[in-house]
């Protein structure tokens, strides 16, 4: 048994991209992030990547984020128009929420990652699909389901850009898919 404090291992899984899909698949359109992750898993051109499926972003996600060179958050947005795919680059938040129970937004999670492990991915983006139907259902509304191919294409392009930026890097075996 080791009795020394644990050290973070930010280089543990060198530069493997991380896809962090957020949402509740029992709440209609809120499950689009999970559906995109599932679809990516069976898309032949998807490079190996580490996928985490979660209802919400948690402090525990800071550790895998610190080990990735690219993180893509995928979520449903209740603010953008129905079925519209959006992408924004995420930077660590400068200020953090005053009240915290156990979930976070992407920028706060990046800030926590910096503070905990001193490292964040070189690029962090948030891909959202505008949702409208959030009642109890495992089905996506038609506009949201129809937006999945566009979201997939956008994510795959991010992977290609990242590989082009790091041509020497060979993506290794795929990481596990973590369910909540």
């Amino acid at each position, binding site marked *: *048994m*080791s*009795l*020394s*404090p*644990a050290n*973070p291992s930010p280089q543990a899984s060198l530069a493997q991209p991380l896809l962090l899909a957020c949402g509740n698949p029992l709440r209609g359109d809120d499950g689009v992030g999970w559906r995109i992750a599932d679809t990516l898993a069976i898309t032949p051109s998807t490079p190996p990547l580490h996928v985490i499926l979660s*209802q919400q972003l948690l*402090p*525990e996600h*800071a*550790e895998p984020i610190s080990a990735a060179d690219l993180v893509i958050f995928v979520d449903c947005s209740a603010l953008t128009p129905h079925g519209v795919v959006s992408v924004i680059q995420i930077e660590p938040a400068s200020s*953090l*929420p*005053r*009240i*915290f*129970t*156990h979930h976070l937004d992407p920028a*706060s999670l990046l*800030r*926590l990652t910096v*503070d*905990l*492990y001193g490292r964040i991915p070189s690029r962090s983006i948030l891909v959202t699909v505008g949702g409208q139907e959030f009642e109890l259902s495992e089905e996506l509304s038609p506009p949201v389901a129809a937006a999945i191919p566009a979201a997939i294409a956008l994510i795959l392009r991010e992977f290609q850009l990242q590989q082009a930026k790091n041509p020497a890097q060979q993506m290794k075996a795929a990481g596990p898919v*973590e*369910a*909540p």
Partner: protein
Amino acid sequence: MSQTITIDPVTRLEGHGKITLKTNDQGEVSEAYFTVTQVRGFEKFSQGRPFYEMPGLMARICGICPVSHLLASAKACEAIMSVTIPPTAAKLRSALNMAQTIQSHALSFFYLSSPDLLLGMDADPADRNIFGVVKVDPELGRAGVALRRFGQHIIELLGKKRIHPGWVVPGGVTEPLDSAKRDEILAMIPEAYANIRLALNWYKRIADRFRDEADHFANFPGAFLGMVGEDNGLEFTDGKLRLIDATGKILVDKLEAAQFDDHFGEAVEPYSYMKFPYYKPLGYPDGSYRVGPLARLNIATHAGTPLADIEVKEFKQLANGPVLGSFYFHHARLIDILYGIEFIERIFSDPTILDTHVRATAGVNRLEGSGVAEAPRGTLMHHYKVDENGQMLWANLVIATGQNNNAMNRGVLQTAQRYVKGDKLADGMLNRVEAVIRTFDPCLSCSTHAFGQMPLEIKLVAPDGSTLDTIRRG
């Protein structure tokens, strides 16, 4: 002039509640109420469902301790089936329960309570959160995150999901363990030991700074209930219940789940949806008692694992008899984590853990069944009645947080009388009132069956009923 203070919502808890403090004409706090404002009603809507669906349904009560509900529910179902589950299934379920205890305690201690302990009760509320902890002591923050991940990952490996795993079923578990998962779990153990050792050492260094809080945070004589093993050591899943009084005298021992109702009743108060369980011979409220980490260490003679045994022995030196101050829930929680890590290491080092006989099957052989497990927050009881076809007729759940309800109310009063002065609400005094509740780590989703996050309000009310000051968060 007398007044009422309301804290609504109470922050850094699981659920939603408010605190009302009433002062007398001398401006002293004379009454305190911790109110849980929402109702969910799982007992009601489970009626008519097949009993074997109950573990899956009941686990949905809570995203923090679904495993406890799975276990208590499955055990109630097994009483209806009249089966004893295979030994390997029992071991696997015990390990799952400890993994959940570890992740839940890590959330409580590191995310919700350590900001008070590290930064101080009077620190700027903007910093008094996990982000503030990480800024000041990133090593402690990393230990907390890693311990929560440790527990969650074991739950995920065994149950396939971190939240609401469906692996525990009436009769055992759905599938046996494979050696790859066992090896992965064992490989995580050394880091977990390092992290809990760091946390325990840190806590012991800072605990003395909180002597005044320790003396006034729900520190009073009262009874303690929990589960113990056959050797009187700590037990979370398959032991029997013991109730002791404030002097350590055993009031009830070796109690089976089915006997719970013979000894314990549930009172209600008009200001809260959370019930108030009590020990019948002493009546309500005198028969109120505490459950959870502090109660477990008070009722057990030892832990039953080498490192935790050392810690329990040291813990018991804090008092001549049961440790009565609820501030020490924090300390006990860390010892629970250490015990859990040792327990998990022991379970997964046992070669029989890969045995493939993990489920017993049977139909309805009794029309009533009770199951009990130690949830992270304390003793959890499920009691069901079914018809000949196994359809649910009636259910009653006695939740850990509910069993601490009276103690939390008394604690709020005691703390408010110590720290709330005058007619203005300073943040530090209110934070202490909230912090006494946090020591219990209440899960209001379970205990009220409420939905949502925990905001809290504190309200200061005059004797004439007028509200003099209110603080609201969330």
